[in-house]
């Protein structure tokens, strides 16, 4: 009986580790392959191998060589700028709105909540033509600030829902006792609600930061000249350029953006998880 159980446990662990090692290989392979490609000489992938025979740093140099159509440094800074401002903007506007929805019973509240629910289901970029026309009317083609504003707008509905759900779980007694002590609404918000909502603020900040990094459609509609590009458009063009597609240079560019972001994500993942899990239960 005992031997049976031991045998069972052995097989269970064997299968578990088998599956996990298999998954590890599947996950690591494409990433390692990209690293390898970035050190391979030449532009095509035909001769690419994971461990290059004649490793070269040419592709990394090319990124910063200052070619008219390849302004990697500028794209990188553009992407960072847009992501950071979108993150700040979404956190500020979402926190305030969520606080209003969570703590006040005002006229139109229910309608506004329904509206937010509907808006988060319609993808923003299905209204592409409108955004294009808007940019032209305002004379803001190629404007990063317009793009940031559009991204913040896109972040508001869903994140407000998440944040409101989280704030709803903070007991009202805290507000009320602070109010008796004479604290104003804004003070309650800044000194009680915000610190307690930190896990969800982390989630909203993450969404705000990664949203622009993952967007291809809005940015390619509004940003039309190479020096205004963000990384997604720039790298996409690098791969799909009819005249001189270069997978290896793309690989070098991909690595320089992926490594810092992956490190930040892995270091901060604990902060996201508690917020995400809470968001899941509260809706």
């Amino acid at each position, binding site marked *: 009986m005992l031997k049976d159980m031991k045998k069972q446990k052995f097989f269970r662990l064997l299968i578990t580790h088998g599956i996990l090692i298999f998954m590890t290989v599947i996950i690591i392979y494409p990433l390692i392959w990209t690293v390898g490609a970035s050190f391979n000489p030449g532009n095509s992938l035909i001769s690419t191998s994971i461990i290059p025979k004649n490793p070269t740093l040419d592709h990394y140099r090319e990124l910063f060589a200052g070619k008219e159509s390849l302004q990697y440094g500028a794209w990188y800074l553009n992407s960072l700028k847009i992501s950071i401002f979108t993150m700040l903007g979404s956190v500020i506007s979402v926190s*305030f709105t969520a606080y209003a929805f969570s703590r006040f019973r005002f006229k139109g509240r229910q309608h506004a909540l329904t509206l937010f629910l509907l808006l988060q289901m319609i993808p923003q970029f299905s209204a592409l033509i409108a955004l294009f026309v808007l940019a032209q009317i305002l004379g803001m083609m190629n404007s990063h600030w317009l793009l940031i504003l559009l991204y913040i707008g896109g972040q508001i509905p869903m994140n407000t829902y998440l944040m409101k759900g989280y704030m709803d779980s903070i007991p009202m007694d805290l507000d009320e006792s602070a109010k008796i002590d004479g604290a104003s609404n804004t003070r309650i918000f800044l000194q009680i609600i915000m610190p307690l909502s930190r896990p969800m603020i982390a989630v909203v900040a993450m969404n705000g930061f990664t949203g622009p990094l993952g967007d291809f459609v809005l940015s390619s509609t509004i940003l039309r000249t190479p020096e205004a590009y963000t990384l997604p458009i720039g790298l996409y063009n690098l791969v799909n350029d009819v005249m001189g597609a270069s997978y290896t240079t793309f690989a070098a560019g991909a690595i320089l953006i992926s490594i810092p972001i992956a490190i930040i994500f892995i270091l901060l993942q604990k902060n996201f998880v508690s917020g995400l899990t809470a968001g899941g239960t509260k809706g």
Partner: protein
Amino acid sequence: MQHRKTALLLSIIPGLGQFYNKQWIKGLFFLLLAVSFFAVFGDLLNMGFWGLFTLGTEVPRDNSIFLLAEGIIAVIVTIFGLAFYYINLRDAYKNGQLRDNNQRLHSLKEDYRNLIEQGYPYVISGPSLFILIFAVIFPILFSFALAFTNYDLYHSPPANLADWVGLETFFEIFTVDIWRSTFFDVLAWTVIWTLVASTLQVSLGVFLAVLVNQKDVKFTKFYRTVLVLPWAVPGFVTILIFAGLFNDSFGAINNDILAAFGIGSIPWLTDENWTRVALILMQGWLGFPYIFLVTTGVLQSIPDDLYEAATIDGASVFAKFRHITMPMILIAMAPIIITQYTFNFNNFNIIYLFNGGGPAVPGSTAGGTDILVSWIYKLTMQSSQYSLAAALTILLSVFVITIALWQFRRTNSFKEGA
């Protein structure tokens, strides 16, 4: 005549009702606001509504699309104007009523304090609402309006005007053969894609979380870090990497991996069905870590006593999973799981960045793996069939909203029953 009725009638011109109630400063404020509203927006309203109705009459002076945009802005401004007008009428009526009942009117100071107190939520959510109107609501209204025009390559400024055509575009989607067949092909693949890809990523995430979370598994820290890597690397980067790996002629999957097993080349990017397989596998790869992370969080919050009690009762590993783990995960994660499905329904990036929705289908504007959003994108950016794209946007929105509302209702009742 009662004061409330007189005040209400006088307030048809904003401010006069307040004057009648002897609230001079407030009345002046309303009057000034009304005057400046027309002074600032007069031209826009005039031009906007004219443009909205006619969409322009003369080429090249009028640009139908700009006129439509101005018209919609005029409508939004009007709605705000009406809201203000309503407040003005109500204020006059309410104060008139107080006078009828011989009650004291609020002083300006009291009114101000009331406004600050009741207005607080409006003040703090106002800026967000403004951004939302500008960045989301206006574009959606504009897009919806376009669906009822004939705006396309042949009716576009500056050479031509567009015109209102009512529901014609919608009829055409269902009556013109090539459009109808494309629409239903794309819709069918969109639904299959959403169901299969989302289910794959959710079940893979849950399964791996349960595996790693077993008490006696070693190296969990290592596995957890590796398994969240696909989530940590920016998605557009990985999709483009996969596009290279899956390449028919030089990709490593055909040349290195399959060749090593002695399998011939697979036409990943040129055969519709193989592209679909590749897309679903990739989405599994990209999407499972998020579910994995959240499930891990949920699993760690399930108390150990539950499992110990079950073990004492002689439950098997699978019984424990089926009766404890699974229900806990489902209840805690229902909303997150649903968002995975709505996300994939609109998952433009993977479809477009991987293979541009291709391989191309002869005679059709949609490629073999285009989902609704990527088809709409192509119609807009590549073939300039703007009104068709807008009509499809409406159909898509109706479809998503119906299903999502139905689902939310179901999970809510599910939660209450549990």
